């Protein structure tokens, strides 16, 4: 009944062609198995505001979606009435290439944006998983890592402003379209990783970056984690500007090799030998790339690497592209997967051993991937999402959380079987600042319309 009435009312707002309430279509907008009652596709910020005001008057919950590739980040929604399909907002509003600034609608696909920027020899370092389909708004709201964060940081470092619709149904903005600006509160920073719980993002402003003339990559492998970490420390201390510097365990290397094989791409030798690997990519002019290559080879030698493989352009693009998609293949590595993003003061050999011990104690296979400083992806591979196997995954999650807490770090859930996500007690108290975050949520979304329950702590 709700569905029929709601669809009719939404059609009254934006017209029949923009609303879908056909039962078969709804599951494609489901979040953790929960489907909306209707899908609506606005084409402007004003239309978004209209839908939000309607939802506010009726007390309906909205989940805004881009390509829906990362909707499983976060918790299942407590309520979900309207799916707001944002792909209708997909224009570049301003692109001032001479100023290296960009203002783009939230529903613009990243791949399409990449092409537009490449025409001016520029790019946006938002190289996130599901790149082929992701929208710029979804990428920012998901808070997922860009594989280029080693050099370019996170969206926080290049998002310069935003336009969005708040919970009162009004179009608001913060920041601007200039690269340096301290006017007013930086509300747009709060949108990064907010999972659509604060507002509906309609437009984002970024600084863009010049494309490098040439790039290169190396895959360096080691018998043990110590060597890989010593190599990483060495190249960082030398101040070598690397766009990508990832350390991964033999488990990760094996998964990656299998994927490259199935994609009929060449598999770099280093991935095949059960070794710890470091992928280092770099860019600049020819002299810079040659210099970095020489230095990487020297560090590899000095830290006892078993192999240091310069990658040709195609191998480099293929490996770099696969690492960008790590979140995607790690979460589908086994029938039941627990994937955590662990922040620790230092990923040492000791921490690696502790994490391995946790896997062993819970009879679990697993893998690690160290991305940029202090960011580790921890994968535990279970056989099933039921019964004792699920309990073992839960125990693993608790053990990792305990370990990270002891080391003054923390662990954030990226992926788990739904049955495990629903055991909310594991994730409760995920952040000591939940009361402060509740205040922010209340300020943006006083009625709790936006993706209620999707954020940590029930927000």
């Amino acid at each position, binding site marked *: 009944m709700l569905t029929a009435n709601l669809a009719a009312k939404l059609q009254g707002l934006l017209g029949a062609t923009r609303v879908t309430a056909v039962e078969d279509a709804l599951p494609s907008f489901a979040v953790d198995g929960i489907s909306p009652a209707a899908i609506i596709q606005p084409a402007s910020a004003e239309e978004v505001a209209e839908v939000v005001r309607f939802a506010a008057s009726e007390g309906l919950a909205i989940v805004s979606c881009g390509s829906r590739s990362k909707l499983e980040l976060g918790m299942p929604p407590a309520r979900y009435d309207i799916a707001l399909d944002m792909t209708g907002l997909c224009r570049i509003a301003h692109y001032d290439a*001479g*100023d290296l600034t960009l203002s783009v609608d939230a529903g613009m696909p990243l791949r399409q944006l990449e092409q537009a920027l490449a025409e001016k020899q520029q790019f946006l370092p938002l190289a996130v998983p599901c790149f082929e389909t992701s929208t710029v708004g979804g990428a920012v709201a998901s808070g997922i890592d860009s594989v280029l964060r080693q050099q370019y940081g996170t969206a926080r470092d290049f998002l310069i402003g935003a336009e969005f619709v708040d919970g009162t149904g*009004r179009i608001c903005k913060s920041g601007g379209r200039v690269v*340096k600006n*301290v006017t007013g*509160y930086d509300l747009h*920073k709060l949108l990064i990783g907010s999972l659509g719980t604060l507002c509906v993002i309609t437009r984002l402003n970024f600084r863009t970056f010049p494309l490098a003339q040439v790039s290169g990559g190396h895959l360096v492998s080691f018998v043990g984690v110590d060597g890989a970490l010593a190599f990483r420390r060495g190249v960082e201390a030398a101040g070598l500007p690397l766009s990508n510097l990832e350390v991964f365990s033999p488990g990760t290397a094996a998964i990656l090799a299998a994927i490259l094989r199935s994609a009929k791409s060449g598999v770099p030798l280093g991935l095949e030998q059960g070794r710890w690997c470091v992928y280092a990519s770099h860019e600049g002019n020819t002299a810079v790339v040659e210099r970095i290559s020489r230095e990487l080879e020297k560090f590899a030698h000095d830290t006892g690497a078993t192999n240091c493989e310069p990658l040709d352009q195609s191998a480099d693009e293929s490996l770099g592209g696969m690492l960008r998609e790590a979140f995607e293949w790690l979460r589908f590595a086994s029938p039941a997967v627990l994937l955590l993003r*662990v922040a620790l003061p230092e990923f040492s050999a000791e921490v690696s051993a502790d994490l391995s011990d946790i896997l062993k104690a819970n009879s679990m296979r697993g893998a690690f991937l160290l991305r940029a400083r*202090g960011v580790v992806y921890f994968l535990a591979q279970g056989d099933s999402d039921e019964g004792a196997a699920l309990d073992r995954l839960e125990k693993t999650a608790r053990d990792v959380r305990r370990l990270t807490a002891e080391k003054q*770090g923390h662990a954030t859930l990226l992926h788990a079987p739904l049955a495990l996500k629903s055991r909310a007690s594991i994730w409760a108290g995920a952040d000591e600042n939940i009361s402060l975050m509740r205040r922010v949520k209340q300020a943006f979304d006083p009625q709790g319309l936006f993706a209620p329950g999707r954020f940590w702590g029930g927000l």
Partner: protein
Amino acid sequence: MTASLLRDLKSLLGPSNVLHQKEDLMLYEYDGSVEKGRPDVVVFPHTTEDVSRIVKLAAKHHVPIVGRGAGTGLSGGALARGGGVMIVFARMNRILEIDLENQRAVVQPGVVNLDITSAVEKAGLYFAPDPSSQKSCTIGGNVAENAGGPHTLAYGVTVNHIAALELVLPDGEIVRVGSKHGDSSGYDLCGLFVGSEGTLALVTEITVKLARKPEAVKTLLAIFDAVDDASLTVAEITARGITPAACEMLDGWTLRVVEDYVHAGFPRDSAAVLLVELEGLHEAAETQAEAVVDVCRTHCAREVRVAKDERERELLWKGRKNAFGALGRLAPTNYVLDGVIPRSKLPQALQHIQEIGKKYGFAIGNIFHAGDGNLHPIVLYDSRDAKALEKAIAASEEIIRYCVDLGGALTGEHGVGMEKNELMTLMFSEADFDLMRRVHDAFNPDSSLNPGKVFPLSKGCGEIRVKAKDMMGSNR
């Protein structure tokens, strides 16, 4: 202010950490801006717990609070607009922890910006944000204002270098936001609090990110016979995809004043100089320097000097860094403005600023961060002449309005404070203010922290004003 609050503060902190005589308070009624606001009492906490207790006492007595570092701010952010208790962080000035391996330092808010770099530079590290006042300004003030500096062109402003904060909320609660390593989970509260100009919380501890010093630095000084040529050079450097670490401009009027005082070697008959710095690996800095020289020559630079060593580099920077001191020789007061424009619009903006100067009868110099479009027009006037101040403010407003009209912003690094709060309506709608006010009230519901800042107070904005305390029955 009541005698009982003063008694309570003295008993909490000891008499040597409390100032309340008029002649003492006068030292705290101004900062680097043209604004004034005298506190009723100044206190010097030594610990976070002191701060929390002071805040609770002030709340009990319904008295507003404002935090202050070194008082070098340029927008009145650290002035007691509503009187009340001023918390000066000068005695919370210890570096608590340095983690060289992970490039982090934990510091108290009263630590001077440059002292962080001094403490870690032997290890090849430094703290990147470098406001002109970095020899005296404090990191707490930098965080509150989200301070910038010449080298933020490549490395970003303060917020890009802050990992975590400890804060005291207006009810005295002590909280921590951000994460020393990696990302914090949840909303980016650290990103919200940095730059909130002391209107949401008081910062009592800061975890900063330390950057690694570049292997090579190339510093160039390009001399131009026409301001337009210098402006076009800046636009083309950006358009060619060259990212200098710094790109500063001094116009002819300013460089002559500076040259007379500093003797930095600027030709007195030139129309503008550009100071460009390129950093990175030797191979990158060299190539980029060559490209910048090429751009300068294309735009008719009369001469391009490249510093051969650190001594020459320092000489080139000397003129820039001592410019404000030099201007002090010409007029009793200089009013340094701070506006941002899209950098491709530099030529027209500089011309228009000169026209505004003529209209108001002021000489307006320009010495600014050209690379990121962050203008600092300087209006020279005599502050003893009330009419001159009024005119200076009117000229400033016209310049800032023009920046916004060009697609720019009210402030690039000085903050809104009480200098530009009435101009906020140029950039923000009622809906924007309403949301900002709700965020403000979520943390500072009674406006007890730094009242009268950031938000417009004028009657026209009655609906959007943040409740400033009724200037607390202040005795002034």
